[in-house]
């Protein structure tokens, strides 16, 4: 069964460092997302991406964040200068159907710990 894969599974970084989280969505999917889950809290939407551009982003997704689909298979989330409060589990998701009505397929997440 096709699945969304994410790397790394866990990354520890120092405050102020740049981090890139990588995702390989399901191959025929068209809509891509990043969500995050701070420990013990709810899952929060960060950004959606379609047709090689951001289609929607939340207030959390400030100038420190960026996304890219560099090669037609990977979908990356970059945090330019990490803060302590960026520590969370980051989930990539994709869907093949129309964005609003389609169920999302989530990866297993990348845990980011900022020290």
């Amino acid at each position, binding site marked *: 069964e096709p699945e*969304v894969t994410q790397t790394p599974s866990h990354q520890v970084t120092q405050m102020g460092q740049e981090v890139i989280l990588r995702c390989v969505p399901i191959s025929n999917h068209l*809509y891509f*997302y990043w*969500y995050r889950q701070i420990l013990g*809290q*709810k*899952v*929060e*939407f960060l950004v*959606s991406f*379609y047709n090689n551009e951001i*289609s*929607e982003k*939340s207030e959390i997704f400030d100038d420190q964040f960026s996304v890219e689909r560099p090669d037609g298979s990977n979908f990356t989330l970059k945090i330019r200068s990490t803060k302590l409060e960026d520590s969370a589990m980051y*989930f990539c*998701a994709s869907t093949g159907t129309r*964005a*609003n*009505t389609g*169920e*999302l*397929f*989530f*990866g*297993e*997440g990348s845990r980011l710990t900022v020290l």
Partner: protein
Amino acid sequence: AQSVAQPEDQVNVAEGNPLTVKCTYSVSGNPYLFWYVQYPNRGLQFLLKYITGDNLVKGSYGFEAEFNKSQTSFHLKKPSALVSDSALYFCAVRDGGASGGGADGLTFGKGTHLIIQP
């Protein structure tokens, strides 16, 4: 703005008994409603959705949910619980807009821990 409330942090049910996990929502346009399940150290898995049509929707693993527009609710149900159903359950909503456009991002509730006791 869209929002989801899951009023119970935890629901305890004996194996074999029916279970209900509650969810209410608020959107300005048409609600697109979803349930996801999260097992420990795993990503979220889709269970079921309501977009339009029948108010009772059936999903994976024997779960179903009933859309109630007047009560703005979308409670998750299962007639007979299994120990393997124990997990964290998230209700989520997208604002489908007045005519099918609307938001991309899902808004999740805070989750309900479902514990099925043998």
